[in-house]
């Protein structure tokens, strides 16, 4: 560092790594779920669409996990070398920090699309905020992800509108999906000490700052779909814990499928 230059304030490496893992785990788990949905979609074209959406999310997770691995391997107190693959396929549920929403099952097509509407609306807002991050590599990842998430939002919103404003059955199923998934939305907007620290350093937006825009965007779609959604700050009980490693039973099954191969044959490659 030359005299006269001021160092850019960055969070401690451990905080940055933890933040990157949390950013990566939600698209990792949701991407895995969308991949598992292949073969169960209502129509072939939608199958391809869901597979593409899942691949986009896996791509985001890959970029973030590669960055986390880079930071881990280059930090002074690391002995073992990690890769994006070891981070994805060998962490147990207690060390995964994805949103609980991403664990919700592919119950039916309405659930898949409502879950994706909720997730992608939040993700687009988050990536948009992260594209201004003081962390250059994170900002570059975000700039790429923003372009992809725009499509995720319009695709899932279009389907929620068609399903809600559709037949009596599709309307009922979509309303049921909204009612069942809304309690998992609150977790997206919780702040903790780490979030405040990263926000102060300009690395990431505060999660709670995304809530209003999320609600107005989703409510617009829900209204067009002739569906009902109670206010977020009303009396809806909100689940949480996923971002702290406290997960539902569902994650165990998802990880068992996702991690089985690498855990049985560590280091196996194509």
């Amino acid at each position: 560092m030359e005299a006269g230059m001021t160092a850019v304030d960055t969070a401690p490496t451990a905080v940055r790594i933890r933040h990157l893992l949390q950013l990566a785990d939600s698209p990792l788990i949701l991407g895995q779920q969308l991949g598992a949905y292949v073969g169960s979609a209502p129509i072939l074209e939608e199958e391809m669409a869901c597979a593409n959406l899942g691949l986009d999310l896996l791509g985001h997770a890959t970029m973030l996990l590669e960055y986390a691995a880079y930071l881990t391997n280059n930090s002074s107190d690391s002995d073992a070398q990690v890769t994006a693959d070891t981070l994805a396929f060998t962490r147990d549920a207690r060390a995964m920090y994805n949103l609980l929403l991403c664990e919700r099952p592919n119950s039916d097509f309405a659930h898949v699309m409502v879950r994706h509407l909720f997730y992608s609306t939040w993700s687009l807002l988050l990536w948009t905020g992260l594209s201004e991050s003081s962390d250059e590599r994170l900002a570059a990842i975000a700039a790429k992800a923003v372009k992809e998430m725009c499509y995720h939002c319009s695709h899932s919103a279009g389907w929620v509108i068609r399903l809600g404003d559709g037949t009596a059955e599709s309307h009922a199923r979509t309303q049921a999906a909204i009612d069942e998934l809304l309690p998992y939305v609150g977790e997206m907007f919780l702040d903790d000490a780490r979030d405040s620290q990263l926000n102060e350093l300009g690395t990431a937006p505060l999660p709670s700052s995304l809530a209003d825009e999320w609600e107005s965007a989703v409510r617009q779609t829900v209204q067009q779909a002739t569906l009902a959604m109670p206010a977020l700050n009303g009396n809806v009980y909100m689940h949480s814990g996923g971002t702290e490693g406290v997960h539902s039973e569902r994650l165990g099954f998802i990880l068992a499928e996702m991690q089985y191969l690498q855990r049985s044959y560590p280091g196996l490659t194509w």
Partner: protein
Amino acid sequence: MPADTQWPLWEVFVRSRRGLSHVHSGSLHAPDAELALQNARDLYTRRNEGESIWVVPSAAIVASDPDEKDALFTAPHDKAYRHPTFYTVPDGVQGM
């Protein structure tokens, strides 16, 4: 599957980034135009095939009858003076 439970069929034309014309890439089923475009994007541009998509309802396309191929297209065969082969294309002219 009975014909009336299928979504309408659409034909998809994709133009590559450096291409000049939309090329027929395939077909798909979709209930409306917007979803037809999105499905075409998901099905036919996965491998970076292109940057512009046209979707047309298959019912809107009128095609020539293959059995009438001789009647319609034999006439120009012998008329070499109509064929565009008697000039050299200058270097740098693109798209010929």
